[in-house]
């Protein structure tokens, strides 16, 4: 008689398990499935299908009940996520609300999360700059954290690989600090951005202003068409999810690709509680899942496990995966798990006006957002009284205004006939921060969430290095703005809590030495080789460049390693 019991362990066993479906989890899933592994992708949030589950994507402004403003009560109930620039009526459904998933702030930390299939890849700012050896060699040269176990040459082929598939628009600028890649045509700088570029590069030859590189299809190659994506239509409504697949997200790109192989099982609403470690086998054998809705506990099994839950949640999950062998969290022989958390210092902006090129304006919208100033401080040698440096965004826009002081016919006429003003220019800093043991996350000893997971305690703060760097950014940008003839310069010492940069990294860092790090150069836990961690938690240092592209490349490289190790019988 046939076995009618479908809930056998065999039915819950896969070749590989991927925890998380965001930007790195999506890549992990695609690579595993393409290589023929039966892969279970676990996502704690609900399913979000490309296009079908983008409810606001084609709405006009007047079709929003509050014209894209959020109600007062929603803002009051969500002081943390409300500080995120993209939290509005059109995308609020993709953000975790403060009360849904509490955490403990030992120091102010704005933890911005997207719990759904695709995670924050739906919401990201899509800036994709490669890291270079100036970044990977940073800790060793400047004596902080630990040495990265890899260099640019290790990751370069994987940047090439992910860029071709994701679609990255950019110029080949020939800068060693920001290596060129497999680019689609760049979005051009506008006339005032170009003017600033010329002024800066003439007066400060070591500083560059380039077109921001971004994950948008400025042109759709066959590989993108095969994904069902077409050229970006310059809507700049990306946070709603894009019906054209104009920007890269797990939902538009890697997950449907993985599904097409027939090898992927996607299980949304699956809160991973812990990774199961078998003491006798000396390796991980699966994961314990709590069903989000029924709260039922289910174990799944696989030969290899990829942890891609996003930086802080990957820390939480390893800390919560305890066994006799690992009483302080899976793979935590070094005691570094949860420590050396770092982020990007986004806490200063500067703006001004420019009175030239008043016979020009822009037309349409630029999804790249404008220009990018790669790090120039302390690049070749230590020059300042602080370590490392900053990159900066730079953008110019032609302002328009209408006099709204009147009433009646004059007011109406004024509103309907806006006048062009000066050009507005602005920049924001993206500073590297130094990972320290004192910036950490840990499990709360008492409080648990409704799935029985301990709350995460977050203790992350700026330091003196960050404050000195911020002052230098403001002084230096002001000097460059003055040199370009910009007027009405406004320095904005815009303190914001760490976390709001949404570039939190570390806690499960890579390193050469198992005594001082968690992961080896292949992203395997030193002490549990069939667990790979390839999201932001694996970062040894933060660089100044946006990290997502590097997570993608890390994920693809780690899968390649895992599959070859499986073939050799090493896992």
């Amino acid at each position, binding site marked *: 008689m046939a076995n009618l019991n479908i809930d056998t362990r065999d039915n819950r066993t896969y070749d590989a398990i991927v925890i998380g479906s965001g930007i790195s989890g999506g890549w992990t899933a695609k690579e595993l499935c393409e290589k023929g592994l039966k892969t279970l992708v676990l996502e704690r949030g609900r399913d979000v299908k490309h296009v079908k589950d983008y409810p606001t994507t084609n709405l006009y402004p007047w079709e929003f009940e509050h014209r894209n403003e959020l109600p007062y009560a929603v803002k009051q109930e969500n002081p943390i996520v409300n500080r995120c620039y993209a939290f509005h009526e059109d995308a609020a459904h993709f953000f975790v609300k403060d009360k849904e998933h509490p955490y403990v702030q030992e120091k102010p930390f704005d933890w911005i999360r997207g719990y759904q299939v695709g995670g924050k890849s739906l919401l990201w700012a899509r800036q994709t700059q490669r890291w270079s050896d100036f970044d990977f060699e940073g800790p060793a040269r400047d004596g902080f954290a630990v040495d990265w176990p890899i260099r640019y040459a290790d990751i370069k082929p994987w940047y090439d690989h992910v860029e071709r598939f994701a679609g990255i628009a950019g110029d080949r600028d020939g800068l060693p600090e920001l290596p060129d890649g497999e680019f689609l045509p760049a979005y051009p700088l506008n006339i005032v951005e170009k003017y600033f570029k010329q002024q800066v590069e003439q007066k400060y030859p070591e500083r560059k202003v380039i077109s921001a590189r971004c994950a948008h299809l400025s042109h759709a190659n066959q590989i993108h068409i095969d994904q069902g994506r077409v050229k970006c239509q310059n809507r700049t409504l990306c946070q709603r999810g894009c019906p054209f697949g104009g920007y890269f997200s797990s939902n538009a790109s890697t997950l449907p690709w993985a599904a097409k192989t027939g090898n992927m099982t996607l299980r949304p609403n699956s809160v991973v509680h812990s990774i199961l470690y078998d003491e006798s086998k000396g390796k991980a054998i699966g994961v314990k899942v709590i069903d989000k809705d029924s709260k039922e506990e289910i174990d799944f099994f696989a030969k290899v496990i990829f942890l891609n839950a996003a930086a802080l949640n990957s820390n939480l999950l390893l800390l919560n995966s305890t066994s006799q062998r690992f009483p302080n969290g899976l793979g935590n022989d070094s005691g570094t798990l949860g420590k050396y958390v770092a982020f990007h210092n986004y806490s200063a902006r500067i703006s001004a006006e420019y009175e030239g090129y008043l016979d020009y304006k822009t037309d349409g919208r630029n999804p790249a957002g404008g220009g990018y100033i790669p790090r120039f401080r302390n690049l070749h040698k230590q020059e300042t009284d602080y370590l490392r440096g900053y990159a900066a965004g730079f953008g110019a826009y032609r302002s328009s205004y209408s006099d709204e002081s009147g009433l009646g016919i004059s*007011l109406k006429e004024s509103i309907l006939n806006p006048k062009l003003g000066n050009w507005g220019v602005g920049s924001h800093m993206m500073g590297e921060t130094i990972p320290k043991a004192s910036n950490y996350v840990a499990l709360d000893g008492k409080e648990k969430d409704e799935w029985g997971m301990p709350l995460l305690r977050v203790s992350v703060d700026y330091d003196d290095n960050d404050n000195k760097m911020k002052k230098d950014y403001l002084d230096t940008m002001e000097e460059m703005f003055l040199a370009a003839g910009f007027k009405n310069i406004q320095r904005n010492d815009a303190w914001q809590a760490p976390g709001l940069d949404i570039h939190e990294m570390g806690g499960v860092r890579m390193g050469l030495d198992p005594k001082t790090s968690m992961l080896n150069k292949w992203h395997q836990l030193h002490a549990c080789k069939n667990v790979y961690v390839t999201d932001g938690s694996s970062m040894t240092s933060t660089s100044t460049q946006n990290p997502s592209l590097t997570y993608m490349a890390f994920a693809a490289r780690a899968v390649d390693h895992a599959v070859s190790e499986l073939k050799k019988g090493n896992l």
Partner: protein
Amino acid sequence: MNRRTALKQFFVLAGGIWIASSCDFSAEAPSIALKQIKLTKADEELLAELLETIIPKTDSPGAKDLKLHLFVMKMVDDCESPENQEAFLKGLKAVPKPQNNPQTELMSYLEGLPKDDVFLRILKRRGIQGYKNSEYVMKNKLIYELVPARYDGALKIKA
């Protein structure tokens, strides 16, 4: 009639009363449901006149045509703080009921208010917001493009 039937009828009756009391069909109720602020139909009509004074019908639609008063009511109800809601209601109640020529009378009243009057500030801000973001203006006057499909960073303005 047993106890169960009696109870059932009681609940049906009570439910009916509850439904009746939550649906106010009197002339006094405004035309949209409000959660936080209380407005009467007369308040709504006055608000419509005030907004028409601010953004009048000319050769293009004005505030009444675009139902801006309903938008302003919605925004004050959902998006303003309790303090602003209170100041708004107080300001609205203080407006003298127009007699013969509402637009002229209301214009001189609004012009007489101090520039920093909270009621006037909210009324204008929300009215202008509703106007600029109305389907009419975005389709016919200040055109909003959902799908621009282009970017030109240096468009020469025709003299």
